[in-house]
């Protein structure tokens, strides 16, 4: 198997999911309260894409992983401190808004532009990876538009598995309705894979990888292109849902009493 791949992973950053989020009106539309102060993580599904990319690159020597990210530079730098320890990669950074209230079409245009700017990209080796949905906008539409801009019409979303065949074909499992996977085989790259959870855990930290990465990550952050997004979306309202329910706490009831209540409730129409 002499294949090697250029895996371009698009991944943004999102607030740590354990943080409390509150929408506020910002100068350019809705934003999150204290957005720049919230600790950020790599967007989880894009993170899975990155780990799958790294595993693929390990398996096929000569492969290379790029991470293309549009985010406020300072926040991206914080997140990269952790990510850089885990996966050998080349960062392509764009300095711009990374929040959820932006338009995916604009984000896609910026990402596609950055990818087109990668020197020596070879379409016959190109695998475009991303998360199938972000944890911010949650639209699941950015990657398709990036791929269209790059002329890629073999596209897969909700991917949980990629296997490379002896003949270099791509066998892909995608999530479909009813807890099933669709199995497809694509002849060869280029292809887009929007990843769901996949099968890999987070790679362990590796100080050596970290040191190697940092040599290139800092310069990429320094030359991150300032990117503005103009949105065609007007927000009529942005609000937290009414979260609180009146929780009835049943303590000190017998197992029989509780079971009867649950069974009656479960069986009621």
């Amino acid at each position, binding site marked *: 198997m002499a294949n090697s791949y250029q895996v371009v992973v698009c991944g943004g950053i999102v607030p740590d*999911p*354990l943080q409390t*989020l509150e929408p506020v009106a910002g100068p350019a539309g809705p934003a999150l309260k204290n957005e720049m102060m919230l600790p950020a993580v790599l967007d*989880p599904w894009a993170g899975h894409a990155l780990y799958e990319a790294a595993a693929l690159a390990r398996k096929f020597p000569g492969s290379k992983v790029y991470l293309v990210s549009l985010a406020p530079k300072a926040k991206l730098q914080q997140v990269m401190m952790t990510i850089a320890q885990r996966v050998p990669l080349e960062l392509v950074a764009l300095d711009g808004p990374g929040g*959820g*209230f932006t338009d995916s*079409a604009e984000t896609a245009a910026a990402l596609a532009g950055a990818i087109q700017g990668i020197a020596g990209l070879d379409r016959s080796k190109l695998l475009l990876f991303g998360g199938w949905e972000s*944890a911010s906008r*949650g*639209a*699941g*539409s950015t990657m*398709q*538009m990036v791929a*269209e801009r790059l002329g890629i*019409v*073999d*596209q*897969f*979303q*909700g991917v949980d598995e990629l296997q490379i065949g002896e003949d270099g074909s791509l*066998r892909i*499992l995608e999530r479909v*309705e*009813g*807890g*099933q*996977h*669709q*199995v*497809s*085989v*694509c002849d*060869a790259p280029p292809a887009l894979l929007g990843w*769901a*959870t996949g099968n890999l*855990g987070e790679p362990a930290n590796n100080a050596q990888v970290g040191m190697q990465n940092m040599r290139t990550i800092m310069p990429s952050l320094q030359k991150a292109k300032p990117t503005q997004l103009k949105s*065609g979306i*007007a*927000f*009529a309202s*942005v609000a*937290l*849902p009414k*979260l609180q*329910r*009146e*929780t*009835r*706490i*049943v303590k*000190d009831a017998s*197992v*029989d009493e*509780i*079971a009867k*209540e649950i*069974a009656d409730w*479960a*069986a009621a129409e």
Partner: protein
Amino acid sequence: METILFLAHTEADGGLAKATLEALEAARALGGVLIAGLVGASVEAAANSIAGCGASKILGVAGEAFGESRYSTDAAAAEAIAQAANATVIVAAHTSRWARALPGVAQRLGAAVDTHVAALSADLKATRWYYRQRIEGVIERAARPRVILLDSGCAPAYAGAPGAAAVELVNVEITPALQRTRVIGKQAPKAEQQTIRPDAAILFVAGAGWTKKQKDGQTHVADAGKLILDFIGSANSSLGSSKSLVDLSGEGQAVLPFLSHLNQVGQTGSTPRHPKGLATCCHGEEPHVVGWRFIKERRAVNLDANCGWARGKADVLYVADAFAVIAKVNELLKAKS
């Protein structure tokens, strides 16, 4: 006045899915000129089933290649229909197939696209969620064309009488470039039993507590597995899981073999829609509970009276041992049926 294109793909049996009929009803409610567009191996049966929907015409792209859920052919078909319809607004169901294809079609058409729309008003204000169901936004767009993908369960399904419909076929040439991908088929995850049932009235969520040491200092994973599957069977429910529990399963520990990441509910899992949900041995932490946004009635069983569910996240929290309670519930449910 808007020209509304209702865009649908057929299912394997040639008919239209419930989510698709819901999108049709939402499209009809918008007023304007309605055009229907159908994609499938053959589209007559589907066209006849919506003959009375009030569409001024029904466009179709048909052929074996369009019976498959595949980006290249789906995008080509949808693009051709959208162009033939010259629509200002395109409404479709957020199925896995359209969710994959239509954002790229929007790019080709120079259209704006809004996905996961949970409600659509007559003046085209779309309600959708941000930050994994944590913030709700209502959005408007002046841009046309505009593609709108509606989540299932957000509108009543179209239920008009079938009739005889005429379909205007739109030709799409199938070039080799559109056939680089072959669809092999569907496969259920490793589990022997299908535990994910989107149409079930109740979602049963299992948390990592089922695998933890219990009051006798031991774990009882085999018992847990049996109790959970018995409940799924006797209550005819769908099975969800917390992340911690599926992560354990993935790490090859002696855990519940019928669970996979597809069962995971929450921030990095699914957000299913069911009228009722019962959480067991699950702490109810925020990244989990955001996946419960569309579960109407919520109850939980947990040993800990201070778990997340107690803090306004469930309607009822039973502070009790889930092993004992679910065993008894299963008995009662079996007796009922």
